[in-house]
């Protein structure tokens, strides 16, 4: 279990230099060369003391590494360090020796402090513009020693947000399905991890197929489909208690679960006598309300951030296409007209785009505006499927399946330029990633 309450900012955000001449990075630059050089030396400690997660000096090194990795993996920065960089004194953290960081456009400093033992650690995080010799931001975090990675992600988030002007996203978690075994008897387990793949944990043991998880907006529970009992049903798994319950009691198959943005409503699909429609039900339980009513397959769905609309997938026209309707099921209209089939729509948390799977020969990850226009294809795999948005709506994760008898699936990430793609490091193969919001 995470202990969100222990993480508190203790420095007021302080911004020093005028905005006009400062460093900045454009997240929409698709030249592939938007790599700002950032030095990330090891964070010094005022006194090297032991904690359950390692000594404060060790933590200073590990935190700098996570910050550098986060920045590198965003594709927008070219961080260096902490290995191969000189030690930084505590004095330098607030008074950098800018002349010794030539060749870098930005400099990250910070520190780790602890009273020792189980007491919380304090992590400082500073960003400097080396040309202007100015401080761009400073942040501080107090966390339990075991949550040191969260302090590192918060620091990377502060740097990312300050340099790009975008909302942060590193300090977030992902639910997904860990896969192993042969293609015709694949073992599929519900698992969770940090946004960078760390703190990986299996939740189900693989005896029953698990599919399509979704973190609740408060990270307390996970919706997913389980084949336990040889039926297809949606469960809500409570991360704190380890218990789960059915979302709705029915003899029919229920699948494709989704949360509303406020976490109060669950959208799901149910097949009655072979015909699948979309329903909603209170997260507390109760009688489901049917939202679609066609002989076609109506499945999935994703709320707009304000909760007023739902984008979903239907083959009522004869092939899979995307439709938008009111949250009460009213006035459905088709938005996808770009040719081919469209599936698995996900509304960006920013509201400006809808991501989906576009099927035109192979399967691609694509985005379009909510009116169905401005379609852009971001990936080019054999079968890229089921995008999920980063909390800031700037990065997508999806899964990529390879053709052939192995048929391995892996979790991948791509930003909105389509240029920065990478595979997430998971202990096994993976599919159905679902990115949660920024951690509270």
């Amino acid at each position, binding site marked *: 279990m995470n202990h969100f309450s222990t993480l508190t900012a203790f420095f007021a955000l302080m911004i020093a230099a005028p905005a006009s001449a400062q460093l900045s990075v454009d997240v929409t630059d698709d030249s592939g060369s938007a790599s700002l050089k950032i030095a990330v030396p090891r964070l010094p400690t005022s006194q090297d003391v032991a904690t359950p997660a390692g000594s404060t000096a060790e933590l200073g090194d590990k935190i700098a590494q996570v910050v550098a990795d986060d920045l590198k993996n965003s594709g927008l920065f070219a961080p260096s360090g902490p290995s191969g960089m000189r030690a930084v004194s505590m004095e330098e953290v607030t008074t950098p020796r800018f002349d010794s960081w030539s060749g870098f456009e930005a400099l990250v400093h910070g520190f780790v402090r602890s009273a020792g033992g189980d007491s919380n650690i304090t992590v400082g995080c500073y960003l400097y513009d080396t040309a202007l010799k100015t401080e761009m931001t400073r942040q501080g975090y107090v966390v339990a020693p075991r949550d040191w990675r969260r302090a590192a992600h918060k620091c990377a988030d502060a740097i990312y947000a300050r340099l790009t002007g975008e909302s942060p996203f590193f300090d977030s978690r992902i639910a997904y399905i860990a896969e192993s075994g042969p293609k015709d008897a694949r073992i599929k387990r519900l698992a969770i991890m940090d946004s960078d793949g760390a703190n990986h944990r299996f939740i189900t043991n693989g005896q029953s*197929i698990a599919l399509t998880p979704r973190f609740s907006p408060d990270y307390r529970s996970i919706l997913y489909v389980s084949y336990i009992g040889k039926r297809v049903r949606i469960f809500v798994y409570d991360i704190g208690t380890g218990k789960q319950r059915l979302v709705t009691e029915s003899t029919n198959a229920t699948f494709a679960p989704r949360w509303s943005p406020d976490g109060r409503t669950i959208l799901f699909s149910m097949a009655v*006598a072979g015909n699948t429609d979309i329903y909603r039900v209170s997260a507390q339980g109760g009688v489901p309300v049917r939202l679609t009513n066609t*002989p076609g397959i109506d499945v999935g769905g994703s709320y707009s951030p304000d909760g007023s609309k739902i984008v979903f997938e239907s083959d009522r026209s004869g092939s899979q296409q995307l439709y938008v309707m009111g949250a009460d099921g009213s006035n459905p209209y088709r938005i996808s007209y770009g040719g081919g089939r469209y*599936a*698995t729509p996900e509304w960006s948390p920013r509201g400006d785009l809808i991501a989906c799977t576009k099927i035109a020969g192979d399967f691609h990850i694509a985005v379009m505006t909510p009116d169905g226009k401005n379609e852009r294809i971001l990936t080019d795999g054999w079968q890229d499927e089921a995008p999920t948005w980063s909390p800031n709506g700037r990065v997508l994760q999806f899964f990529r399946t390879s053709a052939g*008898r192995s*048929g391995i699936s892996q979790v991948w990430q791509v930003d909105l330029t389509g240029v920065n793609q990478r595979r997430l490091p998971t202990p096994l193969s993976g599919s159905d990633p679902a990115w949660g919001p920024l951690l509270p």
Partner: protein
Amino acid sequence: MPTLTRSLMIASAVIALSACAKKTPEELPPPPAETAQPAPAPAPTGPVKGSQEDFLASVSSDRIYFDTDKYDVDAEDQSTLRSQAQWLAANPTARVTVEGHADERGTREYNLALGERRSNAAKNYLASLGVDSSRITTISYGKERPVALGSDEQAWAQNRRAVTVTVQ
């Protein structure tokens, strides 16, 4: 029921068209005898009456196949399902599950819905032959349990299937 009516209407439409569409995969069991015939009585030394082995030994096939993104029951499928209905008539206490499957070239959740369509199409046809529908449950596996592992048309054709399995 609207869905049943619709499935049967489609099924009838496809009977008329079935001459022009060859959809069965290459590696199939031999086609069943043309005319309906009573299920053969199990030999004294054969499988236990009512068992899965008995079912497999008695029916022309335990599965029917579908075209891409389709769920209609064509003439060949009907013949297969007739043999299953005959076995069910001869084993009135037996219960079955029809498992609906899709090929890998579809998105996961759509394929679950497609597998539901296919298993229900088979169930509805069995029911139309007089099998009490309470004896037939359905489950969709979508693309989760292929039988053919390749990524080619022949493998996909084998995976687009509805398989009848006895419930023991």
